[in-house]
Structure formats: C-alpha cells, structure tokens
C-alpha cells in the first residue's frame, strides 16, 4: 500500500511560488488561506539560506489528530490526513500542535472570528462524494481519485517538490543526491513528519528480546 508523502528538495527550490499559485488556483482557495507557502530557512546566513515549500505533511503520527477535541481528523489507507469540516468547531488546537503551521482558519463574521479549519488535502478531497460540488466547495479538487498527484508537485518547474508514495520519492531523491555528490541530503522536515526510523528500530529491538 502506498504511503503518500511530500518531500521538498531545498537544493532545487528557487522560491518561484509556482506551487502556491497552483494550489490556490486548483482548489479556488479563498483570500487569507495559504494551504501551501514557500519559506526561507537560515535567512541571511551566507551559504546556508534555503527556500522550501511547506504545507500539511500528512504526518505518520499527526499531532493535529491527537489534540483535536472533536476528533474530526482521519487518516486514509494511503496515509493522507484529512478532516471533516462539518464537525470542526474551529478551536485552533491543531494550529498550535502542528509543527509546520499547516492548519488555516478563515476570518469570518464582523469580529473576524475563526471559521472551520482548512488545510492541504494532498489533493484527496474530503468526506463527501468524490468529484461532487460539495467536496470541491469544502475541500477542493480530488485529484487522487482521478489517478493524479497533488497539483503543487506536478506544477513544480524544478521538481524540487515531490509528492507520492514514500518509497518512490526516496528512490528519486537518493539518485539525485548521489549524482550531485551528496549535497542537500538533509530532507528538512522529513523526520519531524514521518519519524527518523528510531521508533521502528526500537520496536524491532523490543520484538527481538
């Protein structure tokens, strides 16, 4: 079974914001909501400044799922973290829990109170009929159901942003790093989202005893 993941190759990201624009256009995301954004890491440090495209990473052990008081989050069989907007109360706990700042809240009403949480869906829609108007209205397009990868990654001109099955991404990235002599092998954010493998190793060791 595929485990959907994102990987941003910081050696390739040129901060063009093509991924941001592609996402906003594909899902008709309203003003003030940034499902994806490009950030600068080590800003101003000579030789270490990197650009990186960030959105919901669909973490293996998602903290947003753990802190949600109304349990609106679910993980699909292919590892995508989605949520039911109808049940969301807009408390904002997920925003504080998320290490990537992915959850977004539209400002609604006269006093600008928080609306229902919105975030990257890995272009997998949500708990509405696939391809329906209701799904598009609440979550955006469901490209996964059409056999396509997220728009941000498919639009990336330098192929810095990769999306898809973790094994396929790892193969592509490994090949690149070897070809360029080992530089940029950090995979910033990968361990935070998917773990370093230490937990798995500990489980394996525990099982051996």
């Amino acid at each position, binding site marked *: 079974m595929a485990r959907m993941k994102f990987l941003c190759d910081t050696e390739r990201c040129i901060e063009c914001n093509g991924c941001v624009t592609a996402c906003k256009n594909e899902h008709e995301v309203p003003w003030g909501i940034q499902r994806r954004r490009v950030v600068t890491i080590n800003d101003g440090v000579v030789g270490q400044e990197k650009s990186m495209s960030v959105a919901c990473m669909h973490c293996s052990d998602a903290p947003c799922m753990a802190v949600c008081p109304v349990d609106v989050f*679910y993980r*699909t069989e292919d590892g995508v973290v*989605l949520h*039911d907007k109808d049940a969301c109360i807009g408390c904002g706990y997920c925003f504080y829990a998320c290490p990537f700042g992915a959850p977004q809240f539209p400002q609604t009403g006269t006093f600008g109170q928080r609306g229902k949480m919105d975030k990257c869906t890995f272009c997998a829609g*949500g708990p509405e009929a696939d391809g329906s108007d209701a799904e598009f209205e609440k979550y955006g397009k469901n490209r996964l159901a059409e056999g396509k990868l997220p728009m941000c990654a498919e639009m990336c001109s330098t192929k810095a942003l990769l999306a898809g099955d973790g094994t396929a991404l790892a193969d592509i990235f490994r090949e*690149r790093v070897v070809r360029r002599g080992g530089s940029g092998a950090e995979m910033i954010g990968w361990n935070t989202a998917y773990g370093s493998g230490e937990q798995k190793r500990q489980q394996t060791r525990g099982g051996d005893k």
Partner: protein
Amino acid sequence: MNPTRLVLLIGAALALAACSEAPQVTHYEAGTYSGKPDTRPWESAAYGGDKAKWESDMRARARKQTEIGRMPPG
C-alpha cells in the same frame, strides 16, 4: 504531644507525600474519528474499485517526477 495526634500528623504527611502523586504530563492519544465516512480513491468513477490499477497509475506518476534517465547519456 498526644500520641494519637502525632500518628495522625505523620499519617497526613505520608498521605500528602509525592510518592502517590500521579504523573502530570499530558499524554495525547488520538480518539476515534467522529466525522462522516469517506470513500477510497480507487472507488471513484475513474477506477471503479480497481485498487491495483490505481496503485500502479500512482506509482508511474510518481516516477515521472524525475528527469534523470529521460535523456540518453551524452
């Protein structure tokens, strides 16, 4: 001091001692999903439940993200 009082005081001190204190660090656990059920991507009209075909298409699409190997070595 009255021996009964002394015993009571020692007892109270022991009862209030930290040895019986429960851990106060919150341990978060994801609850059970309470929202609406969702369909799986291969159950869409495009795939009609053919999971193997969906997975194969996704794998092929993912592999297309690399340009290495598209051109013959120069």
